[in-house]
């Protein structure tokens, strides 16, 4: 059975970011593990997504209610700058879209110069590569997670582009027979 292209706004999820040479050690002290390789992400059993952007910047997102509690200490510490030297907070107010459905790659073919087919191939239910690129002129971070229903791509973007970004993607998705709840 074919699955229509679906775009979902998941910006409301709890999200935390930090970077710096001491960030990885500090996160480990808080019980947050991060992927080893550059530009990789993983999701733990609680549903906490940890993404390493390039080498020493990290993005965390709660994909499940259980994961939010794991993020709270880090979030508070970063907000209050109660952090050791070498750890820098990165405010993440991203506009986030999750995309799924059979015609995902046609959507990306019209909007992104990076080939995301190998990204899907290299991703699993809990880990995969992180792509830092641009879509329709907006800088984005992209991951893919394989679920029983198929691949699900997550796209993080600057919130000031949210209206433009959503309208453009939704228009294309609609042309492709998709749904934008």
């Amino acid at each position, binding site marked *: 059975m074919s699955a229509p292209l679906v775009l979902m706004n998941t910006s409301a999820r709890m999200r935390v970011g930090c970077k710096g040479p001491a960030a990885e050690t500090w996160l480990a002290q808080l019980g947050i593990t991060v992927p080893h390789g550059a530009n990789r992400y993983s999701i733990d059993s609680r549903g906490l997504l940890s993404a390493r952007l390039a080498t020493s910047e990290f993005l965390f997102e709660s994909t499940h209610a259980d994961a939010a509690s794991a993020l709270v200490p880090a979030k508070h510490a970063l907000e209050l700058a109660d952090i050791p030297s070498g750890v820098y907070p990165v405010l993440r107010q991203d506009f986030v879209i999750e995309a799924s459905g059979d015609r995902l790659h046609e959507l*990306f073919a019209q909007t992104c110069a990076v080939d995301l087919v190998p990204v899907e191939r290299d991703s699993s239910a809990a880990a995969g590569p992180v792509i830092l690129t641009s879509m329709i002129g907006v800088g984005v971070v992209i991951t893919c997670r394989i679920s029983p229903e198929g691949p699900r791509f997550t796209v993080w973007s600057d919130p000031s582009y949210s209206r433009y970004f959503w309208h453009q993607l939704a228009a294309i998705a609609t042309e492709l027979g998709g749904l934008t709840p």
Partner: protein
Amino acid sequence: MKRLPPVEGEGIDRAAPLEFSFEGRRLTGFKGDTICSALAAHGVTVVGRSFKYHRPRGLFSVANHDVNAMFQVEQRGRSIPNVRGDVAPLRAGMKVAAVNTAGGLETDRMAGMERLARFLPVGFYYKAFHGRWFPKWERLIRRAAGLGVVDKANRAFTTPKRYAHTDVLVIGGGPSGLAAAHEAAERGAGVILADEWGELGGSALYARGGASVDESVRRLADIVIAHRGVRVLSSTFAAGYYADHWVSLVGPENLTKVRARAVVVAQGAIEQPAVFRGNDLPGVMLASGAQRLLSRYAVAPASRVVIITANAEGYAAALDAFHHGITVAGVLDLRERSHPSESGLTGAIRDRGIVVFHGVKPVEARADSEGHVRELEFDVEVSKDRSARHYLAADGVWMSVGFAPANALLQQAGAKMRYETAIEQFVPSQLPAGVFACGRVAGAYELSDRVAQGREAGRLAAAHAARSVGAMPETEGAETLRKLQSLVFTPRGSPSHPFPVFPHPKGQEFIDLDEDLHLSDLINAFQEGFDSSELLKRYSTVGMGPSQGKHSNLNAMRVLAKLREESVEAVGPTTARPMFHPVSLAHLAGRGFHPHRRTSLHDEHEKLGAVWMPAGDWQRPEYYARSGETRMAGIEAEVRAVRTGVGLIDVGTLGKIEAHGPIAGEFLGRVYTGQFGALKVGATRYGLALDEAGVIVDDGVIARLGKERFYFTTTTGNSGSLFRELGRLATMWRMPVGLVNLTGHFAAFNLAGPLSRAVLSQLTHVDLSHAAFPYLGVREAEVAGVRCRLMRVGFVGEMGYEIHLPAVDAIHVWSAVMRAGERFGIRAFGVEAQRVLRLEKGHVIVGQDTDGLTTPLEIGAEWALRMNKPFFIGQRSLQALQRLPQRQRLVGFTLPAGSVRPKECHLVIESGRIAGRVTSIQHSPTLGHAIGLAFVEPPIAQRGSFRIRVERGEEVSATVASLPFYDAPGERQTLDEDLAERTEMLA
């Protein structure tokens, strides 16, 4: 009707008739026809008029290579100009009309233009288009020239561009391209095969030599189509090659940008015409075009033909004509004898009783009363110094005298070419890494050679794709080429004549059909000194028409080589640029992606009646419209609110960046002209960023939030580029600085005016007294329950607080401030009021009051320079500039009462020459008169007055004024607290 009985492999569906009209005449074609084949099937021989002389023109290449067959097509309510009839599929209901006519094809009122030919010599544009005659010429030429008509009533439609990725891209679906695609796919590579025709097989499909299509080619095409590793894009041509193996593919509906790991160019060769008097008459065409009509569309373009040839392909064309029942009046071979390898073909010609002439020199093609060819006059060399004149009646003259390789993409990819005299053709002499060539474009003409070369190119391309991109060593390119070219081993004669150009005393030997260029035009251009291929092209316009020289460049090069008495290789080809074929603007435009940003307060501004203006990628309120208030009245009211009470402006579009780390201050001190290593925590400082030449590129406010923590703003338009530059500098200088771009994630607004403190004090516990929080201070504190960064700034010349906070909380805090300010008459103000306010204060806007050459020395910003620092970007240039006389100086100015107000960019005139320009000008509601900033030469600044030229050449006088215009002592920033309190109480 010229439609033939069913032909093997024809591409039309005779069971699906399609009605259409041409120049108002109702006609019928079949599904699978192109516009041209359907017209030819009805015996329509004149399909258009030439660009300059409006000569009647017929089908020529039937391959989208010439300009003759372009049409205005109306269908489904749209009128599309310049539709290429050679390849445009026929659709039911199409209304087709010729382009470039005045009053219709047959009754073209411009048909007599040729009589004016002697007044329109080569380069007449350049000679005529100047002085007082220019407007007359321009109007005349615009009326006379032009191709189709753009229907402005057409509604825009989107043609989404796509990206595609592949291991190997094969361009061209002829025998060599098919072999390359198959071989690469068999070796596991993912392949995209793009071919401009609707069916794979290339010239093998139509150049049959009176026989069937070669079965091996047909079989190979079927295998490739069925192969899981090959994606075939038919009716798709490669328009341009760009860096890193990006190739733009233009299909019927849209443009696809393909990124390939390796590219195989198998685009074949383009048949070239012979140049002789009358070679543009309807009925004179390329043999390959005639063969296409015969084989693909079952249309006989003539009943009796003469074939001018210089290669085996011409003999094959004669056999094809004979096979389809066309009388072949004669085969006129330009060579003294045919090549021994052609014995099979010449024997078949003899067997069919077709007369062959050798050593032929075409003299003239003559037309009948309707302009169609009726006879060819030619000379045959009898002995070394004697020839005999002959005449052959024919309604078709087919030319097969040679080919030009379709190597534009190879050249764009960076391939080097050499002229191979054995085949009279340019072939690659050097290929870039990851680019491969095979088939006719690489010099292989025999079918077996083309297939073998294609297979090798496919093998090499797959191997290259399997390695990491760009890993191919340079030497491998040369080795690849050697391997590919070694695969041409079948002996045969040259496919191309070295000089198929035959001057006639009366001229009219057309060398470029697009531009109506005669042989004499090139000779005249050469004699006028335009003696290089690039100059000749630009002066004569050869190769500059819609077909981009596909059938003219090579012959023009040969003519130039002859005139220069040099080889064709020495003359060299002109630069090949995208697009290979013309591409419709709809394809190029694609779907409109124009990224634009909104601050998190956008909806609040809407509620307040914001009138929007673009600022870089952003939309910003220009002012807030109120019922019964004009734009100017609104802006002035906003200014007054700030000067006398309190105003609030969204400045969230400013770039907002953090720099972290123990040496962040030192880093910023290298980027900006000021001193930041010693900046106290809790303080801010103005920062000016320069480039290496000392030119101002950005400015902002740098705040020190902690020992190792800085937060700073950039101008609205520069946040992205400056952030990238900072990252580059940190890497280059090996300075471990943590940079965070908060631009989109942070909101910011400026609460300004003498009552700003009174408003803010209601929402925060931070001590706002001047002693505790002085001008240029920065504090982190809660405002309306949200943790914010507060900066005491004075851009608009009043006491003010910039409030920076996470974007998600912006509406809450903005609303709280507006509520708290209600009793003080707070008013939101827009960009226009801010511009007035800052101008009154004499503050510059980078990008408006500066340009790409402005240094701090010219705007009076010496105070922002710490020249005694060890280093900052642009310091050395400024040290040099300080020793030189100044070029210009930014000064304030005022105008006499009642004077016409100049506009920004109006020029300062001194003794009839330009001596500066106005950069900013506004009416100041505070001062009651116009004020402005202008660049002027330093002596003018010293003199104290200057003149500005306004519209219609009028000049107004201006008086230099000291800056700032408002609050010179700066008392508004250190407003006496008692005064502030009294003002607050009064409010």
